[in-house]
Structures are given as structure tokens and as C-alpha cells.
């Protein structure tokens, strides 16, 4: 931990760090690969929709010694429909029978209680119409749409449209990965999953926003210096907030893991488990995307801006000049401020794009004074 502490310091000073932005192509590639896998998985295997989407009844028994196979036989006999029986962590059984209506479910519940020798009142049943899940899902899609629009607007106002766009891409990326994992692993999709998925929205963006905030601050006076390009500053922002990102993700994942492994262990399949599973997957994806996708994407978009292009040229020209001088420590601390002056001629050589820059360049003296 103390090592982590000093690592934090070194990351902060930029002594160590990973070139997230420079190696972004690799990560884009990995993400595209994951996304394609997810989409293929979704197309080929489809989602294992829970009973909420198919309609049917779920019976939950109190603790019982009846075996799963036996219970399944009973349930199928009683209902005439295929049944899925799970033994939950606390010794209770969860019996899903699809395609039952109210009357049938009552009947099946009664028969089950006789077969399993459990007093009738102690078997819970949950009857679900097929459109229930659909309704939740369709509302979830609406929610997703509304949320994305609002968030893009908000981020565009609070930050700028490039960041909003990058955040949106990262968000879609997270959701695709989460859904893909559900398809590939074959976890059951329930309304709980949908809830979890919607919650990821907030979380995924939370991380992204923290990095963007630091990036915004770091690049406030970016055109008044010639030591760093936008991409480099973006990279520094990621690195300097890395500890924070790791901490926040760990801290967010811990309670969810508690829910997933401990709560889920107690309860077996259930709403808690469904929510926490999708949260867990989504949170991890969200942390990944805010570091490896969102911020590099902002840098990519930003560097297409004429002003940033010009800046990059100035920076590179200056470095080249420094290298020519024989000074190898291009970005060493010894660099006097005055050197930014040296960069100006080189910059002047670069044509029209710089003109816009000039106007703002007037602010430079004051910038340097500080």
C-alpha cells in the first residue's frame, strides 16, 4: 500500500506512466475485438431470457431435502410443462415453470406442496406474464435513450462535444461488452439484469467524468505552452488520475462483489444476484473504457482540431530543435520558459492553420507571467 502510495506520487509527477494515448490503437483494436466477439456471441447464442420474458411461474420452497431431479419430475408432472429447478444456497428450491396462468399456477403450487410434503402456505410463487419483462425491457430501452441524450447534452455543456461523444462511445462499448458477456456465458437475463445494466450507465460515466475533469483542467492553457501536445497531456491526465480511478473502481466493486458472492451465495438466483452480476461486469468494463477508450478517443478527436495540430507541430519542432542542439533531455526540467519563444519561428513557418492560433497567442505573455 505504501508502495502504491509512492507509485501514486510517481504517477503524479509523470515519472512513471503508461502511454495510454500513444498505444491507443492497440486498445482500440482490443476493444473492437471484444465488441465483435460480443456481437457475434449475441447473434449466435442469443440471450438466455429469464422467465419474466417468457411468461410462467416461479415457485420457491422453504428448505427441503427433496433432490433437484425429483422436484423437477414433480413439477413437470404437475404442470405438464418443462421445469427448471435450482437448489439455492440456503437449501431452498427455486422451480421455474414456463407458460402457466394464474389458475394453473395455483393448482401446480398445490400439487407441488403435496408432492414435496411442504405446507401449502410456505411455497411462494411468482407468476409472470410474458409481456411483463418485455415492458420492463422496452422501458429500459427508452430510459437508455433518454439518458444518453441527456448525458451527451450535459457533457457537451460541462465539457465539450468531443468529450461527450467519446463518453457516449465508451458507454455503448460498456453496454455491448456486458450484453455480450451475458450472451456468451449464458447468464439468465431478468429484469434485475436490466436494472443493473441501466445502473452501469451512471457508473461508467462517473469514472469517465473524473478523468475528463482532470483532462479539462490540464489542458486549460494548452495553447500557451509548447512542451506538450494534447495527446501527451491527455495521457498525463489518465496517469495522474489512475490511482483515483483504481481506488474508486475498487471501492465501487467491493460492495457489489459482496452482493454478488455473499448475497448471491445465500440467495442463489434472485434479484440481488442479477443486479450485482450485471453491475460487476459493467463496472469493470466501465473502468476499462474510461481509461483505455474514452480519453484516448478525446485526444484523437481533439488532435484533429487545427489549433491542436498547430500545437503539435510547434512542440515537435521545438523538440527537434532541442535535439539538434544536442540536448537530449527534450522535456527535462531544466528547460527555461524562454524556450517557448524559440518555438515561435518554427511555428511561424507553418502556414494558415496557425493564424487562428495567433489571436489567442496574444494571451501568452500573461500566461507566462504566472
Amino acid at each position, binding site marked *: 500500500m505504501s508502495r502504491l502510495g509512492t507509485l501514486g506520487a510517481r504517477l503524479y509527477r509523470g515519472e512513471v506512466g503508461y502511454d495510454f494515448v500513444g498505444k491507443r490503437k492497440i486498445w482500440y483494436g482490443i476493444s473492437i475485438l471484444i465488441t465483435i466477439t460480443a456481437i457475434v456471441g449475441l447473434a449466435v447464442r442469443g440471450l438466455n431470457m429469464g422467465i419474466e420474458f417468457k411468461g410462467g411461474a416461479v415457485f420457491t420452497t422453504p428448505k427441503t431435502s427433496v433432490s433437484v431431479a425429483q422436484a423437477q419430475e414433480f413439477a413437470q408432472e404437475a404442470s405438464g410443462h418443462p421445469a427448471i429447478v435450482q437448489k439455492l444456497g440456503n437449501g431452498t428450491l427455486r422451480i421455474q415453470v414456463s407458460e402457466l396462468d394464474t389458475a394453473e399456477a395455483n393448482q401446480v403450487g398445490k400439487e407441488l406442496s403435496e408432492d414435496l410434503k411442504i405446507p401449502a402456505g410456505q411455497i411462494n410463487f411468482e407468476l409472470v*406474464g410474458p409481456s*411483463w419483462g418485455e415492458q420492463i425491457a422496452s422501458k429500459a430501452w427508452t430510459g437508455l435513450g*433518454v439518458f444518453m441524450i441527456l448525458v451527451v447534452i450535459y457533457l457537451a455543456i460541462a465539457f465539450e462535444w468531443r468529450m461527450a461523444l467519446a463518453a457516449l462511445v465508451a458507454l455503448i462499448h460498456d453496454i455491448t461488452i456486458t450484453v455480450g458477456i451475458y450472451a456468451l456465458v449464458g447468464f439468465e437475463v431478468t429484469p434485475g439484469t436490466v436494472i443493473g445494466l441501466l445502473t452501469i450507465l451512471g457508473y461508467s460515466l462517473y469514472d469517465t*467524468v*473524473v478523468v475528463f475533469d482532470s483532462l479539462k483542467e490540464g489542458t486549460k492553457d494548452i495553447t500557451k505552452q509548447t512542451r506538450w501536445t494534447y495527446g501527451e497531456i491527455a495521457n498525463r491526465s489518465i496517469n495522474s488520475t489512475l490511482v483515483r480511478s483504481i481506488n474508486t473502481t475498487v471501492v465501487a466493486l467491493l460492495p457489489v462483489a459482496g452482493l454478488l458472492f455473499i448475497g448471491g451465495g445465500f440467495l442463489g438466483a434472485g434479484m440481488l444476484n442479477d443486479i450485482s452480476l450485471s453491475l460487476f461486469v459493467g463496472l469493470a468494463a466501465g473502468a476499462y473504457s474510461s481509461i483505455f477508450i474514452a480519453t484516448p478517443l478525446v485526444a484523437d478527436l481533439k488532435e484533429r482540431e487545427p489549433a491542436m495540430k498547430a500545437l503539435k507541430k510547434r512542440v515537435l519542432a521545438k523538440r527537434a530543435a532541442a535535439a539538434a542542439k544536442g540536448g537530449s533531455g527534450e522535456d527535462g526540467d531544466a528547460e527555461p520558459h524562454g524556450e517557448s519563444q524559440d518555438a515561435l519561428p518554427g511555428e511561424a513557418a507553418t502556414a494558415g492553420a496557425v493564424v487562428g492560433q495567433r489571436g489567442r497567442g496574444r494571451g501568452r505573455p500573461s500566461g507566462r507571467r504566472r
Partner: protein
Amino acid sequence: MAAPKKGRKAPGGQGKPGRTLALMLIVMAGLVGGMFWSGDTTPRLGIDLAGGTTITLKAEAEPGKESAVNETNMNTAVGIIERRVNGLGVSEAEVQTQGKENIIVNIPKGTNSEQAQKLVGTTARLYFRPVLNVVPAGPANPEPTGSPSASPSGKPGEKATDGKDKATAPSSSPTTQGRAVTEALKAPSPTPSGAASDQPKAPESPNPAPTPSGAAANPELEKQFAALNCLDPKARSNAGKGAQPEQATVACGKNSVGGWEKYLLGPAEVDGKDVDDAKGVLDPQRGIWIVQMDFTGAGSKKFAKITGKLSQQPSPMNQFAIVLDGEVVSAPQVNQTLSASAEISGNFDQESAQDLGNILSYGALPLSFDVETVTTVTPALGGEQLKAGLIAGAIGLALVVIYLVVYYRGLSLVALLSLLASAILTYALMSLLGPAIGFALNLPAVCGAIVAIGITADSFIVYFERIRDEIREGRTLRPAVERAWPRARRTILVSDFVSFLAAAVLFIVTVGKVQGFAFTLGLTTLLDVVVVFFFTKPLMTLLARTKFFASGHPWSGLDPKRLGAKPPLRRSRRVSAPVDPKEA
């Protein structure tokens, strides 16, 4: 934010931390005190935790009546269902609309859920019964003198026309103060078959000789009728309960002025299903609201039969009662034989006419409903789930605490106290919101609260890391705490806003269980902001004055050496180095 050098000035420039903290503690004490004072010391548990049955009904749009699924009809349906379910003797059953087309019925533990399902699911419990006798509400009181209050309630002007042949009938109806109860089916004579004392004729008329339908009022029923006290809500709701359509029964109903009357009713002659369509319409000729009814083929035959019989009877036996769920909704007089269609006129206003129309045409509910889901939960299982959820939450919290202590050492004290403050506030608010807005803690809400631990802890981490950054810049703790705040504050606000937005959207667009989750998430996000602003920050400012933290004790979590602080000399500058804490 005007003072750019604030950070370097004496600490405490940032308001008065002690006072803010004290204020916050007072608010917390107030909430907790309020919690104990109101006696709601635990959050109200949702049906899934306390046990019970949840029934979700979905309104079915019938072909050609798609617009029937609207807010008014949904609310009427809620009212009727509520009356039914609570009439069962279940207290605290909740019936509420959810979204545009769902009604959620929550029936707490200890109810016969099968019976409840039947009650909720059935749509038609509407009967037309001949009135055998009607008197004011009270129990056996042969002299209806007593209540002058219920006085001027005559059965006022009323007419029902055989809509086809005689749509006219000069609507004299003078006395009219009433609503649905006071009307008649084609009754030109404004016979005030009053329930009240002023009319000698009707109610007290000691009791009918020949009952129309031949179902003699048996002595037992007579006794029941005499004993019935419609002023007692319980007796009222039990009055018509369980009456078989083919048996005579007693029931209560409101008269024109809203006073209660009790009815002795014959066997049902016409069923709610026999009504093909009914609606409240404005009669353009008379400018009054009436209810038009059309019967089905079989229905019109039955209706003709009973109206034929009833029109021969003296008042009050020339009325027939429209009985909805055991309660007399309306008791119009009949003056002639009616068949396929009829209109009820009386003192309707638009609302009451349309209500009655709805009631008649849809059996009982203004809409037909499909039972979507039925969930029964025994409290035992719910309790177990709650327990598991709480254990999971406690373990999650413990892990977070361990992580924070290991990583932030002394600073974790601040985080823990803030988490504690947040927990107290959340708990107190949840408890208070139960009775206030009907918030019930269900399993997803517990889940939301657990997830929120992460969100709350995130804010501290953002702030702590900022402080550490400032210390790395070579500042001492006091200025570091102040300088770190404006930026941490912005980050916290921006990211909390995003979280809150997600919760709000989730809350607005979703239904049922999801809402509980979203609500908790939104609430805790808001509380997070409150706690960070009014608790964590002032606490941090205060702690920065203590020697333990200010000197950067190795266990304080703010040891400059360990953090790799630069010597306090400020030589080089770099772009990412903090500029004045101006905010955008």
C-alpha cells in the same frame, strides 16, 4: 471564487467549518429525533421483504376503445380495486397506478392471497336488484325522525326514458341536490321516494307486502336489515359482502346529499354483463347529464321483465338498485317497461354521469385488466433475503473500510465518519419517507443502498487524492485542504450529477421494483453531495488544524515524504501544475 490566492491565505478562509459541522449535526439529530418522535424508527418494508402478495394488472385496450386507457379511468379503477381489496378486511393494502397502464396491488402478509387475486382479477360484480325497502342509514330505528341533517334528500326528479320512443320528458326534477343515487328510469313524476324523513311515504313504509320477484324477504334478512348500520364503515363494507346474486340481501348506498341509506334488496335480476354499453352524455335538449345504457340481447329481455314488474309497484319498490361490489351506486325508479336501451337521468354532473356510465359499461371497472404477475412472498423468505442483503452490505462495507484504512490510514477516519453520517441520514430519511410518500424498502432498494456505498466513498477518494496532489506540490496541509476543495467539489458535483441523472431517468421511465432501486440510488447520491459539502469538508478543515494531520504523521495518510512531496520551494512549473483554483 474571486480571491485567487485564497488557498495560500490562512485556513479557515473557507467559512466556519465548526459552525457548518454543528449545523449538519443538528440537522442529523433533528432527522433522527423526528424519526423517533413519529415512531417510524424502521423503514417501511416492501412486500417482498415483509411478505404478502403483489398483483400487477395491465389495462387492456379493447379494440375501438384504445383511448379508454387514460388517467381518469385508471384512477377510477384504482378506487374500485382499493375498495374491493380493503373491503376484504385487509388493512394497508396499497393500490396504485404504475406507469400508464399498470395497476399494482400490494397486499401485505396475512391475507388469503387467492381470495385477493379473485377479487382483484374479477371485473364484473355489478347487479341490478329490485329494491324492497330503503331507510336511512342507522340501525333499527323505526322512527327515522332523528337526523335532520340528512333531510332534504328526496328522490328528486328523475326520469328514465326508453331512449327510443320518448326521449322527452320535461325534466322537472326540482329538488336535485344529488348525485347518482337520485334518479329514475323514465319517471315523469318527480316522486320523492325519499329516504329521508320529510317524505312520509317512502322509506318508513313499514314494509312491503308482496315482494316483486317473489323472493320473500325472510325474517332473518329483515333482522339483518334492521340491525344494519350504514354509518359504520365496517358494517357498510360487510353489508353486501358475499351475497349471491340469486339471494336477497342488504346493502348501503349514498343518497343525493351524501347521507347513507340502507337498502333491502331482492335477488339480482340483471347482471352487469348484460349491459352492452353505457355512457354519460349531455342531453342536448334538456342540457342535463344523463346516462345511456344499451343492453345485450339477453339483457334487454331480462331488463324488460324486471322493469315491467317494477313499474307496477308502489314506491319505494318501484326502484331498482344498481349494486356495485355490494354497494348501491344508484337506485333509479321505474315507471314503465323498458327494454333494449334506457337512460338514467337525475342530478348528474358530467363526472358522476360518466362515472356511472363507466361502471355500467365495464361491469365494475372502467377498464378490463389482465393479471400480469402475481407474486406471493412469505415473510420468512423475505426476511431471509433482507438478512442476506444486509450481510452482503455489511461485508461490502467492511471491505471498503479495510481498503480505505489500508490505503488512506488516518484519512480513513474522515471517510468512515462521513459514511456513517451518510448511513444515518439515509436510514432516517427512509424511515420518514415511509409514512410521508409511501416509500417502502424493497429488495432492489436495499441493493441500491449497498451500491451507493461505492458512490459515496468515491467522493472522498476524489477529495483525498486532490489533497494529496496538493501536498505533492509542496503545500502544507491547511492550504492543501482548501486548495483541493474547489476542484474536488467540481469533480464530485459533475460526476454525482451524472449518477443522479441516471437514477432520475431510471425512476421516471421504469415501473415497480426498478423504481425502488432508482429512488434509493438518487436519494443516496443527493445525500452524498450533502454529506461531502456539509460534513466531510468542514471535518477535513478542522482536522487539518490538528497536529496529527498537519504534521503529516506517518499514520495520518498525509505524510508528505511518503506522498513524494516536493520541497516547498516552487521552482519549475508545468502545465498540469495547479493554477489558481478558479472554476470554470
